[in-house]
């Protein structure tokens, strides 16, 4: 579920605007540190600081589109380079300020519950519940609200959508803002369990990319399915072979997917578009 949470934001932005947001992992970490700073250093209420960091990240995503990506839209090489450069810049700058020590945010709920005799932290329950709720909300928004419908319209056929009066730039900016906010949400939900670390940013990006490739770029159901598959595969190798091998599993999974099912598990309709 952790994987699904982190990947769904990337998948969302790419699916709508065809903009690969290689700064995704950086946004995740940025949100984590922002929340940490608000709570620990400025002493703001926890719930409030989460909301603030979500808003900040949405603004950052929007600004990234408005000021940087809009100028290189349609040039895939520059899009990739620009977003990757921004992501690395954020991560490496954060490395100066938050070096070494472990940063962690407080749990939402203390305590554990027993399910089938196995004690589970309530925070992990929150993660799972949050993930399910998030997917449900995204589905509802994209199917029943005007903004959501316009985003889907752009995703399916940009020119036709523009003819019907949907502003493509605005939709893409909104998509990136939502995608970034989703990264932030994933961060604030997940981070209480572990700790924040700059290197995690690359990790998160790798996992998000892997999940998206395996599930099919831009396909949301595929993303969630792939997140579960990859998560279980990672846990299995972690327990039976060794935690070091988890990253190997990711790479192998991607390569196998690209060889046998290049457009991902559920990315069928785009096969013609992506395969040369």
């Amino acid at each position, binding site marked *: 579920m952790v994987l699904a949470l982190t990947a769904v934001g990337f998948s969302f932005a790419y699916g709508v605007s065809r903009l*690969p947001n*290689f700064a995704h992992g950086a946004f995740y970490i940025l949100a984590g540190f922002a929340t940490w700073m608000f709570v620990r250093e400025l002493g703001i209420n926890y719930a409030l600081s989460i909301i603030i960091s979500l808003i900040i990240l949405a603004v950052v995503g929007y600004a990234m589109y408005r*000021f*940087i990506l809009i*100028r*290189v839209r349609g040039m*895939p*090489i*520059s899009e*990739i*380079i*620009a977003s*990757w*450069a*921004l992501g*690395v*810049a954020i991560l*490496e*700058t954060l*490395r*100066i300020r938050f070096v070494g020590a472990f940063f962690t945010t407080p749990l939402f709920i203390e305590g554990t519950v027993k399910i089938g005799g196995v004690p589970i932290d309530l925070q992990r329950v929150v993660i799972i519940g949050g993930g399910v709720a998030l997917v449900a909300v995204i589905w509802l928004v994209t199917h029943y609200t005007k903004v959501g419908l316009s985003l889907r319209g752009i995703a399916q056929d940009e020119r036709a959508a523009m003819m019907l009066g949907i502003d493509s730039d605005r939709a893409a900016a909104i998509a990136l803002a939502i995608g970034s906010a989703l990264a932030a949400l994933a961060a604030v939900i997940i981070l209480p369990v572990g700790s924040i670390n700059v290197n995690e940013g*690359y990790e998160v*990006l*790798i996992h998000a*990319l*892997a999940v998206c*490739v395996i599930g099919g*770029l831009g396909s949301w159901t595929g993303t969630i399915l792939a997140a579960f598959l990859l998560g279980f595969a990672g846990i299995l190798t972690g327990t039976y072979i*060794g935690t*070091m*091998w988890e*990253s*190997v599993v*990711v*790479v192998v999974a*991607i*390569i196998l997917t*690209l*060889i046998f099912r*290049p457009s991902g598990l559920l990315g069928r309709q785009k096969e013609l578009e*992506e*395969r*040369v």
Partner: protein
Amino acid sequence: MVTEARRRERLDRGIKVRTERLYAVSGWQEIAYLVVPRLVLILGLLILPLVMPSMYWQKVMVSMFVFGLLAMAFDFLAHYVGLVCLGGALFTGIGAYIAGILNSYFGLPLVLTIPIATLGGGLISTLLLLPCLPLRGIYFAIITIIFPLAVPRIITALNIWGGTEGMTVPGVLPNVWVELYLILGVVLIVLFALRRLVNEDYGLVLRGIKDNDQAVKASGINITLYKAQAVFITSAIGCFCGAFLVHQYGWCGQSLFALDFSILPIAATVLGGVGTLVGPLLGSCILVPLVEILRAIHYLRITFYCIVLLAFIVFKPEGLMSWAQRKYHQFEHWEKV
């Protein structure tokens, strides 16, 4: 308020037109027009090490040329074949480890390890990246991001080849002059070879793949094969850099997979001018010494590269070299519309 509508009119210089094709050799002026810029570059690069004041700056120059090579390789792959490689560090790392292993475990001499690492490393990298070559879109970028981050983990996990501490490589290049002129020679050869290559029919096919792969495929050309060859060329250059660095440091470790080798070449390419091949070299000749001068920001250097990169991509996407070429070949004046 009345704004006067003006535009810049650009015209080719007469001499540029006169030096096309065979007419290039029709007189000394025409020959000079073509030869002088190239000669300035070659002689300038050859003389530069001699006028460097100290050993320190000579070492800086070596790393400058290494990054220049990497940047040219990136430029070739991204702007002539359309494959954006975000992890050039993969190539340096693979080349470095091959050279390191051959030298420290099997004791092969430098003359053998560097070529073997170049060709073998190119082959291995190409095989690793082969699965995503039949696809278009952002797959290649994704895969190349993942590899340089994952491979060091595998090395750590297996604890082979020195694990996290790296291994000492006994064979080192004898002195700084050999280092300098070896890398300089390779830089010049690669530069002119790539320039020639992209203007041949072969380069035409590659550019065709970048612009419209369907059309190339419709002409009965195997795209994947061409892409694989281009990736081989690029990764072989990258692997050479890795092998060279190993023999320069006398040490081989995971820092050869570091982010610098991925980001700096990209920044240098965008700064110097995309698609010009000489631009990236120029870009790294500016960036590397600049970072050395600004040693205070050492920890922020990657951020610095990224900011240069973003600034150029947003405000001056053509880069320095394209600008210079335009000034050299054309004159411009304002014109009322």
